[in-house]
């Protein structure tokens, strides 16, 4: 399974007079992981929505399978459902309009919850879970779809450091398996270093850069991206392996 599984080709989206996305192109084949980086309000979420067909394109085209494992920033589920009942929704595409999920579907949902480490609270009401726990349940639902494409909208945005770590380890292990095309948006370049092969930088001037994480994560590119002086540092991880980390060099002697 090679070739483009998900992506945009020369895609433009305009909201009124404002062009949010201008002739944007990128592709993510199965087995690779893409991080979409950009400052707030630059159109990361719009790019995702356009790619998934939730946002009308003014020009260009999109590529995506019919069913995508999509993890929204937060689920609007105001229904008091149990986590397992949220996860089993991932099976909907495999069931007809009038069919109910059966043993098999619940087994798939349970193993997906297991995979994301959410099995512990499978029977808890979803709206009583913490933000991090909800994200794991939504990720399990995305895995339960069986789609070769996994799309996450700002997965780390609302999480504390511990939960960010948990999510990134999970994303990285999914990347290592190499049988999914993974796309996620983030405003933290360290997330790209931790769990992506490629990076798409949506620059403030409306242009975009697309390439491997190694090519993209340079101080020069990141300074253009955020308008803040950036430093790339080497450090030793907990297992002694050398890591790279990106730090903003904020002004002031004592900052960052």
């Amino acid at each position, binding site marked *: 399974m090679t070739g483009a599984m998900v992506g945009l080709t020369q895609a433009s989206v305009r909201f009124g007079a404002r062009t949010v996305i201008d002739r944007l192109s990128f592709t993510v084949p199965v087995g690779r992981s893409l991080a979409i980086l950009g400052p707030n309000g630059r159109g990361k979420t719009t790019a995702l929505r356009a790619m998934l*067909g939730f946002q009308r394109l003014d020009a260009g085209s999109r590529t995506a399978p019919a*069913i995508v494992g999509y993890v*929204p920033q937060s*689920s609007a589920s105001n229904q008091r459902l149990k986590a397992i*009942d949220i996860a089993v929704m991932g099976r*909907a*595409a495999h069931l007809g*309009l*009038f069919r109910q999920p059966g043993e098999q579907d619940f087994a798939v949902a349970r193993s997906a919850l297991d995979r994301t480490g959410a099995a*512990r609270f499978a029977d808890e009401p979803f709206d009583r879970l913490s933000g991090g726990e909800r994200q794991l349940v939504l990720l399990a639902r995305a895995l339960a779809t069986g789609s070769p494409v996994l799309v996450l909208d700002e997965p780390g945005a609302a999480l504390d450091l511990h939960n960010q770590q948990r999510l990134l380890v999970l994303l990285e292990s999914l990347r290592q398996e190499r049988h999914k095309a993974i796309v996620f948006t983030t405003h933290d370049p360290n997330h790209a270093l931790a769990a992506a092969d490629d990076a798409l930088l949506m620059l403030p001037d409306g242009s975009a850069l697309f390439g491997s994480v190694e090519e993209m994560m340079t101080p020069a590119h990141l300074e253009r991206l955020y308008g803040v002086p950036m430093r790339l540092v080497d450090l030793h991880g907990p297992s002694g392996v050398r890591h790279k980390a990106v730090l903003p060099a904020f002004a002031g002697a004592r900052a960052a």
Partner: protein
Amino acid sequence: MSSVSEGLAVSRRSREWTRTTLVFAALLALFFVSLLVSICAGRFGVPVGRALALVWQGATDPSRPLTAMDERIVLLVRAPRVLLAAMAGAGLAVCGAALQGVFRNPLVSPDILGISQGAAFGGALAIMLGIWGLPLIAMVFLTGMAALVAVGFLARVDGRTETVTVILSGLVVSSMFAAVVSLLQFVADPESSLPAIVYWLMGSFASATWERTLIAAPGLLIGAALLWSLRFRLNILSLEEAEAKSLGAKTERERWLVFGLVAVIVGSQVAVSGIVGWIGIVIPHAARLLVGHDHRVMLPASIVLGATFTIIIDTLARTATAAEIPLGVITALVGAPIFAVLLRRHYRERSSR
């Protein structure tokens, strides 16, 4: 450690399962009791044993000529009436439950969306033109559907439907149809068609006959059965648009399927028993309190509870006073206070989040 937590999860699951089973057992028991009481109670009381024997005879040997007074009352007057009330109540409740899911708003119901008023217009027009029977049902159904389509178009702004605009559009369409109905009443013949329209609008099962019950039955039963079989899909449709789409739902089309089924049910109900409000909003809430939010258990609970509630209300309507109280009056008297409480609870819950 994992086996311990798994054991806990399993025991919680089985406990929940028992709870749900008990709730359903209690609801069904209540349903049968209310059915029996409604058959027996009235100006002409029938003992329970005799009523059961009569119903059994009627069911096993329907062609037997009915001669005795109590026989005729139970089998020709009360039985069709109770059945119609049960089916109408179940239909309205399941409509409310489905619409609240689709709109992601617990405060919508068939009457708030203007379907009832639209259907009322069709009915009033039919009565004025002297149309009865199946053509009347067809007219009621079509105008109910038209009201729904009007609400759908009004509420769509830039391809999106906000729940607030839906409720406001429902209000607009509802008042428009109500105005036209008033106009029809104004021009109707005060000797013949005006009383018929007014009485019909107030909602009642008093005119129930086997013929009317059988006319309404297909729409009510098929509509409710189809909505019930959509119960898992309704869980998906109650998610945010993008989420539901990513899970493979054709949200727009499936929503209209739900609306169409609602129009079939409400049309059938209004055609034979006029406007019966409040059931579609009060019952789903009660069901949610009893069995939770999952449509897979909430929908069947709404169906049983709706049938029971309507039978009880109808029995009250015909036994509380010497004259029969219009059904719509009682459901409003009971429903409005409950709705007010729910409204306050809903907003308090939202602001505490």
